[in-house]
């Protein structure tokens, strides 16, 4: 590979940290969910980079499963957000604090 493994790992780290910033900073539940998807994709990128660098196929298979799990998680998470919106009329996570002591 002409592009070194380190470049892919740095890109994966940058994307992951952009996702972390989104989760920590934004208060809208849907944006937080999108940032989680960015983090998952960054991890997938690192897995495929290692699979290419080590001439293995496990990395790609793991990414296949991670994609499937992420799709299932998005479906269930969005259903939960819809339920929360029906109850509280908001998706601002600062205002969903019924269980806060």
């Amino acid at each position, binding site marked *: *590979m*002409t*592009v070194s*493994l*380190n*470049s*892919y790992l740095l*890109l994966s*780290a*940058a*994307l992951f*940290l*952009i996702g972390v*910033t*989104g989760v920590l*900073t*934004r*208060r*809208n539940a*849907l*944006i937080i*969910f*999108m*940032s989680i*998807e*960015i983090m998952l*994709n960054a991890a*997938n*990128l690192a897995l*495929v*980079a290692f699979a*290419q*660098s*080590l*001439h*293995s*196929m*496990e990395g*790609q*298979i793991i*990414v*296949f499963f991670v*994609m*499937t*799990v992420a*799709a*299932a998680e*998005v*479906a*269930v998470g*969005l*259903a*939960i*957000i*819809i*339920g929360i*919106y*029906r109850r509280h009329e908001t*998706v*601002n996570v600062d205002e969903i604090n019924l269980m806060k002591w």
Partner: protein
Amino acid sequence: MLEQAAFTVFAAGAVLCALIVITRRNLVYSAVFLVACFCCIAGLYALMNAQFLAAAQVIVYAGAVMVLFIFVIMLLRADSTQAGAEVINFQWILGPLFAAALLFQIVGVVKSFSTTAPLGEFSPEAVAAAGNVETVGTVLFTQYIYPFELIAVLLLSAMLGAVVLAKRKI
């Protein structure tokens, strides 16, 4: 050289689109730029000789997951321009600060990184001989058949859970 140029374009596109996703006030803009980010990542997968994953990324992420997101955004009208919009508080400073510190640490680790692991048997030539999709299929259906069947059960349960959670009356 073409590979290096393509990597730079896709990497810059992915990082830029991700930054736009987390900073927009309008949710639909964020969703659309997330689609662009996923397509850039699909391009990166194709660069890394993972053509099956590139296609799966476009179909699953950009095609299905983001459509779900946009459905829910339109359903809930959850724009940040409503009342209860986000205010600028200390989180806007601490969040990026922590991320920058972590990025600094990861850069330090990755720079001194070198893999000395033994190479597997799926070299690019061996995979190109049979095709990437066929290789992924062979490994998936022989070595990883149990996780494959379990993933099917997981998808079924997720589908049932989503339907039950989103119904008005069970």
